[in-house]
């Protein structure tokens, strides 16, 4: 089974499988596009990254996801690859995953005669591993618009701008009060552990505090415990550890007020 084929065909080249019973989901209309309903927005699993990037609902209601899509692969990869494929591939470097974690995405899984829903954080269990049973497909993703958040942050550190698999990335949604207090915060790191890391203790430690370098520095020990980066061809574990902390500090850059505001 495949959708865009951008992960599958690379894998098949390395390990050809025979016989070849492949089902392409890519042309099923019901699995494409974004629909709004009272329950929230439903994104068809087989929507290409490019189609989502040009979709006004995604751009305006879910900018953190749009920012992740923007840096995924290259233009032809974005034309071909799908959001469902990115989720099912379950790579810790998947660029749509940290945004979907902070948005508390709920996945709709369908089989011939059943539908179930599961939170993305419960669906992905390890690198390349997700809870998809035989006969099931990912039909789409449910997202709730939460206009409360006033900072929508995504940053990916790679080796170059295009076609770079991330070395580490951070997605963040924050509600910061006018006086600079963090009232709500959701954080998710990519590429720093076998799955996406969204540490609730780090979030809790930030809540109620003034958004400043000091506050962010204070949670570094908690962050270091939450992540378990690896050495690979793209970066060393030690480098990833440093970057994971540094990109958290870069949150300040998307904060509209100057440091020391209100104190």
């Amino acid at each position, binding site marked *: 089974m495949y959708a*865009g*084929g*951008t992960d599958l*065909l*690379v894998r*098949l*080249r390395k390990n*050809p499988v025979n016989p*070849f019973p*492949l089902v*392409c989901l*890519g*042309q099923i209309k019901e699995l494409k596009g974004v629909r709004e309903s009272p329950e929230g927005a439903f994104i068809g699993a087989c929507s290409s990254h*490019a189609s989502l990037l040009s979709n006004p609902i995604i751009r305006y209601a879910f900018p953190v996801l749009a920012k992740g899509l923007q840096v995924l*692969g*290259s*233009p*032809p*990869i974005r*034309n*071909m690859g799908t959001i469902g494929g990115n989720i099912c591939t379950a790579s810790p470097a998947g660029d749509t995953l940290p945004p979907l974690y902070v948005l508390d995405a709920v996945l709709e899984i369908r089989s011939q005669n059943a539908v179930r829903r599961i939170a993305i954080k419960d669906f992905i269990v390890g690198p390349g591993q997700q809870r998809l049973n035989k006969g099931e497909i990912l039909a789409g993703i449910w997202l709730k618009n939460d206009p409360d958040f006033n900072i929508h942050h995504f940053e990916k550190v790679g080796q170059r*701008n*295009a*076609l770079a698999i991330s070395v580490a990335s951070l997605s963040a949604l924050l509600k910061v009060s006018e006086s600079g207090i963090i009232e709500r915060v959701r954080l998710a790191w990519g590429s720093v552990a076998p799955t996406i890391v969204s540490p609730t203790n780090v979030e809790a430690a930030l809540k109620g505090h003034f958004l400043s370098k000091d506050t962010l520095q204070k949670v570094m020990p908690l962050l270091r415990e939450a992540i378990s980066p690896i050495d690979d061809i793209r970066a060393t574990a030690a480098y990833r550890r440093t970057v994971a902390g540094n990109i958290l500090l870069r949150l300040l850059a998307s904060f509209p007020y100057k440091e020391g505001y209100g104190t």
Partner: protein
Amino acid sequence: MKISFTLNGKKIRVDVPPDRRVLDLLREDLSLTGTKEGCGTGECGACTILVNGESRLSCLMLAAQLEGCHVTTIEGVSSAKKLHPVQEAFIEHGAVQCGFCTPGAVLAAIDLLQRNAEPTRQDIREALSGNLCRCTGYQKIVDAVQGGSAKLKKGQTS
């Protein structure tokens, strides 16, 4: 398996094994060797084709995915007598050295210019960021795409 699609304006029907890549279908079965294979893993853009006007990588597509689609390869962008304005601009700006990346870069440029008739240099760099060139250093390719954009505009007004 039998599939039907439109290739460079002509309807065709082919019988291919289900694991045939589009790249092999084009080059080996249909002798359209303008589409190149660089990496075979989606990273270089040499195998770029247009499917329903959008740039795609033929090394990462299976033939069956073309069913019912409109496909343009580099062989389909010029007419017998005249090159496409973007091709002319590539030649005039010296944007071709060994030429291996050129078919893919030209198609990616055509895709861009269809969506954005007057791209900035940054737009061009982004749109062609999936097309690697080992020879030219990209400046001349960006110049050529701008040149192509100007030619297309002139063509429309004259």
